[in-house]
């Protein structure tokens, strides 16, 4: 075995031991996450923490809840901008909102909300479309640390690109009217923040906690390997009301999940599905 290859085998073993330790000691099971993604984020975390090996990280994480928290934070990687994917919000306005208007009440679940930027963008959209009064917006993430950030309703100050994306998404006013500036940060208007229920929920291990008419779960399941990905889809399916909408990321599909027949993709939309059975 060459030096590089044996180093690789050792690193892989250390990664396994780290994940095993985290699962058994803290109950956070990362063993079914997509391996290449997990390795990349762990390596980046090592560099940032200036640690030499996964074993060193393991020693720290097992004895220090703070270290676990910062590890979990490193593993979540939502983008800290509002209206990141303008095309999604535009499609959502055009295709889903008109139907939601005909319903008396709507429960929306934003899965894997991270630090909340997309959740707030969704709240702005629902508000502008006159749906805020009958919507309940639940946002969840597995990591309590990022949820604490999300609850503050403070996001990095949107730049010109964010304002442009807001317009492309069909925004009806000015993005700047939704927040007050505080230095390099933006404090979102309290009526948005107060209408969102942030709650800790781990899609990998926790059960369904309500029935929703809309589930937004974009680019979250990328982090899971195929078997956990399919289990998570079972959970989403259980949590979605019949004729409810499931919104996935632009390059996520249902074609390899057991639930593929239960949904219909809205034609011409970027991966918005309607549950039909």
């Amino acid at each position, binding site marked *: 075995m060459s030096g590089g290859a044996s180093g690789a085998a050792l690193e892989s073993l250390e990664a396994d031991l780290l994940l095993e330790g985290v699962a058994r000691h803290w109950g956070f099971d990362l063993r079914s996450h997509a*391996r290449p993604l997990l390795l990349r984020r762990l390596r980046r975390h090592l560099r940032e923490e200036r640690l030499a090996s996964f074993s060193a990280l393991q020693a720290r994480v097992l004895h220090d809840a703070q270290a676990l928290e910062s590890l979990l934070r490193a593993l979540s*990687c939502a983008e800290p901008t509002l209206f990141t994917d303008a095309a999604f919000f535009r499609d959502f306005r055009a295709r889903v909102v008109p139907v939601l208007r005909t319903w008396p009440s709507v429960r929306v679940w934003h899965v894997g909300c991270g630090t909340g930027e997309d959740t707030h963008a969704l709240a702005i959209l629902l508000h502008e479309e006159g749906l805020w009064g009958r919507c309940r917006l639940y946002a969840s993430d597995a990591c309590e640390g990022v949820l604490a950030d999300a609850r503050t309703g403070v996001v990095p100050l949107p730049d010109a690109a964010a304002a442009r994306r807001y317009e492309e998404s069909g925004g009806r006013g000015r993005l700047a009217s939704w927040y007050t500036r505080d230095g390099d940060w933006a404090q979102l208007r309290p009526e948005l923040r107060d209408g969102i229920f942030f709650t800790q929920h781990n899609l990998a291990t926790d059960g369904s906690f309500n029935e929703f008419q809309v589930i937004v779960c974009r680019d979250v399941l990328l982090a899971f390997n195929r078997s956990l990905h399919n289990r998570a889809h079972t959970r989403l399916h259980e949590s979605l009301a019949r004729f409810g909408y499931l919104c996935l990321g632009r390059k996520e599909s249902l074609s*390899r999940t057991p639930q593929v027949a239960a949904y219909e993709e809205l034609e011409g939309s970027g991966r918005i599905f309607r549950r039909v059975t």
Partner: protein
Amino acid sequence: MSLGLLVVGAPRGAAADVEALLARLPPALPVPVALVLHRGPFDALAAPLGRGCPFPVVEPDDKDDLVPGRVHLAPAGYHLLVDRGTVVLSVEPPEHGCRPAIDALLESAADSYGASAAGLLFTGHEDGVAGLARLQARGGQVATVGEAEAGLEGGVEHLAPAEVDAWLGRLLHAPRGRVVP
């Protein structure tokens, strides 16, 4: 070890060279190709690259299978990673200002394929150099096309564009290891 995957990385400036390479690939390619070409958020790339190519160029969805005789092109806005026969997409932050990034693909190929991956890097950008070195360290066959790149030495072949075919041919027809009874 026999070849299981060909990974190709190229900066935007090498797009024409990549198109030419794809057009010359052997029609009965027995391995999947994973390709990262630096791109902006709205470039349509799969169609022009597929025009001259003898087999399909697709932008895979997350968790798609890597299929022999198919070029898996990194979609705009996502890193393309590989995991033993499966495509894994990622929205991690850009690397070297790029998403998709070449380093990300090469690193994942080094981890999950090691010596059974071959890596071809079109030079002209810092992205890809570290990944190619890692793939080489894990026993993969690696080569660069274009100007020699600093930071890569020892065992990395530098090819002229016209030599790529011969390099590929050598890899694909390498004699298989003897079967141990």
